[in-house]
């Protein structure tokens, strides 16, 4: 069954603005990851946050995790046209031999120059 649900499904902003994308999930997780997919390309890992962490930063990316609400958000600051892509959250669960990533449906971000 699908784990992550991103919100909104599509987002259009002006270059320089901040983009906030949300993800909700249903079961307990080991970690939560965000990936980017440019049109016609494979997914690229952006950032990972463990279940015992609340916030992580990487360059212009900031991710938060609220395990009590089973939700995460990805903030891209000072967006650029090159940030135009689809963004997916993915939850890792459980640990061990059957560990797997479950992806949400994705958010399409358009950054207008």
């Amino acid at each position: 069954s699908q784990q992550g649900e991103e919100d909104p499904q599509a987002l259009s902003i002006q270059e320089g603005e901040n983009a906030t994308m949300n993800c909700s999930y249903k079961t307990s997780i080991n970690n939560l990851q965000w990936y980017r997919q440019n049109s016609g390309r494979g997914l690229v890992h952006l950032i990972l946050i463990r279940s015992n962490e609340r916030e992580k930063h990487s360059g212009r990316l900031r991710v938060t995790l609220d395990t009590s609400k089973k939700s995460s958000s990805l903030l891209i600051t000072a967006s650029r046209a090159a940030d135009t892509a689809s963004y997916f959250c993915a939850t890792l669960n459980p640990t061990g031999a059957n560990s797997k990533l479950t992806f949400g449906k994705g958010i399409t971000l358009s950054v207008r120059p």
Partner: protein
Amino acid sequence: DTAVSQTPKYLVTQMGNDKSIKCEQNLGHDTMYWYKQDSKKFLKIMFSYNNKELIINETVPNRFSPKSPDKAHLNLHINSLELGDSAVYFCASSQWGAKNIQYFGAGTRLSVL
């Protein structure tokens, strides 16, 4: 050098045919995956192999048969192709462990006519 490479990039074929997709990774990872992405961009895991051993088989029809000759290669053979098999198929790899950060190939767009 491409980290995860899959061939072919495009595959157009008739219903009922048999086709194969090949994947190779040069990252030294011990785990490889096949994902299917549908027209709505929903990404779903199909199989995973760890050290050539099948770990995850997500109720995929028997027409799909993965094969891992060694840790660096994971191929996908599909028999009796159906219209519903049309999708983009992604290969990915990771190093087994707590993080499970995955590296994706560029995808194979399969169109069944």
